[in-house]
């Protein structure tokens, strides 16, 4: 346990600059685009007042003519989502790099990791936990960033031009956020569970490649196909959650899918531990 925590600390420590960089980019781009949009909108309204035009003449985005945080978010879809997509891409790439960086380079750290007087599953668990921590960390950062952006909104937009909005509307206003933050908790657990079991399956695929090298690439692809097939076999056979004529009740469908996920996770972890303990090669 102790050494697992040390390894986890090390993995997070190694990624700290990239993580901080992603957070900085996200904050800078989102806040920047909010400020730019709002300054422009506010200036336009002030100009309208100066020209004695009525303020209640709304636009498509702001029908009442007043500015709301939710509609602002709706208006800046692309620039708001861009840093999120970038973060997802970087984290996705790092799922591979978190292993491969130990093998590549002049000083191959994997020797040291495998020589540690600890169960090797701790290396696996530390890397998996680190990825999870990075994802949740970015998510938490985005969540904290929203109130900050709201404060900035309030600072720029004068009270008489402002219209109050609900937090849920703010999240719903953007295409990217509902994916990151599903409205109900079940959905949250489901989508993140799905994502994380995919991460574990990829981990096992990487370890297959690292253990058997060229032949391992084939094993890895076969393993990923098998995992994907297991997960999508029910939905593809028209037993979807929403299909009223499906053979299974929605609850049954949900239960069976859960069991399949559990099996994919269990087999990935078991195989990963075993490869790391017996088959891995430096």
């Amino acid at each position, binding site marked *: 346990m102790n050494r697992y925590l040390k390894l986890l600390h*090390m993995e997070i420590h*190694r990624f700290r600059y990239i993580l901080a960089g992603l957070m900085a980019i996200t904050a800078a781009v989102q806040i920047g685009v909010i400020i730019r949009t709002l300054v422009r909108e506010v200036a336009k309204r002030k100009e309208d007042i100066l020209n004695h035009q009525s303020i209640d003449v709304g636009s498509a985005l702001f029908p009442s003519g007043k500015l709301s945080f939710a509609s602002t978010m709706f208006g800046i879809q692309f620039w708001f989502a861009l840093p999120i997509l970038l973060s997802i891409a970087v984290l996705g790439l790092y799922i591979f790099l978190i292993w491969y960086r130990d093998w590549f380079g002049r*000083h*191959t*750290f994997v020797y040291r990791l495998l*020589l*540690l*007087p600890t169960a090797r599953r701790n290396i696996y668990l530390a890397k998996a936990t680190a990825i999870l921590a990075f994802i949740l960390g970015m998510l938490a950062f985005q969540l904290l960033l929203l109130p900050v952006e709201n404060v900035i909104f309030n600072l720029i937009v004068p009270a008489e031009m402002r219209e109050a909005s609900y937090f849920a509307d703010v999240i719903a206003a953007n295409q990217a956020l509902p994916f990151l933050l599903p409205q109900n908790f079940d959905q949250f657990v489901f989508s993140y569970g799905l994502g994380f079991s995919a991460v574990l399956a990829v981990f096992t695929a990487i370890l297959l490649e690292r253990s058997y090298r060229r032949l391992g690439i084939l094993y890895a692809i076969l393993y990923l196909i098998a995992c994907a097939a297991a997960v999508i076999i029910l939905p593809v056979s028209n037993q979807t959650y929403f299909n009223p004529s499906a053979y299974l009740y929605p609850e049954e469908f949900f239960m069976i899918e859960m069991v399949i996920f559990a099996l994919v996770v269990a087999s990935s972890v078991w195989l990963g531990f075993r490869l790391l303990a017996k088959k*891995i090669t430096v």
Partner: protein
Amino acid sequence: MIEVVNMHKRYRLRNVLNGVSFTAEKGQVTCLIGVNGAGKSTVLKAIMGLTPMSKGTVRIDGRARERETYEKVAFIPDHLTMPSYMKLSEGLRFMADFYQSWNQARAGELMKFFRLDTSERVGNLSKGTAAKYNLVIGLAQDTDYVLMDEPFSGIDLFSRESIAEVFSTDLIDGRGVLLTTHEVGEIEHLLDKAVLLSHGTVAKEFQCEQVRSEEGKSVVDVMREVLWV
């Protein structure tokens, strides 16, 4: 005692090791000798569990490899194993964090002996300095055995000399040392035992002093005899 029994290893459809058996005693310096590509490194890696064997057994003091083995046997590969971004002091800290067998005082002595600067970064070390730091990391563990892969290869004469000096000190004394080399001449008088590896098997295993007194042959002489046929 480290026992290697009937070790086989297949790599890319080639039999790299074809039933290698030998022992390395505690308190002795044993040298695994063979030409480049004879599989010396593979033997060390397989002992440490860094690569799987196709067949065979490794026993350390009569026991199979387990977690505690890594507190008892130190492995010094032919290159550094600390990430480039670490400072030397951080590398030592890392070792102290993970190994109970780590001896900080000894690490300090060794750093001084090799005149290494703790604020240097691992990525900036020259080849000779990296080899010395590598040795510090391996030898500062209070282990019964030390495995070294080509500790003298590819580094300058002075680094080589100061590394050879370590073998005459109490840093090595009493431990079992198993090292590999492809050029034995220079270090011949440091060795107790030689194991000649050729074509994936042990061609000869002998005590160096015994061969000198009984046959009047140097290790290089025996090597020539056995490996060049």
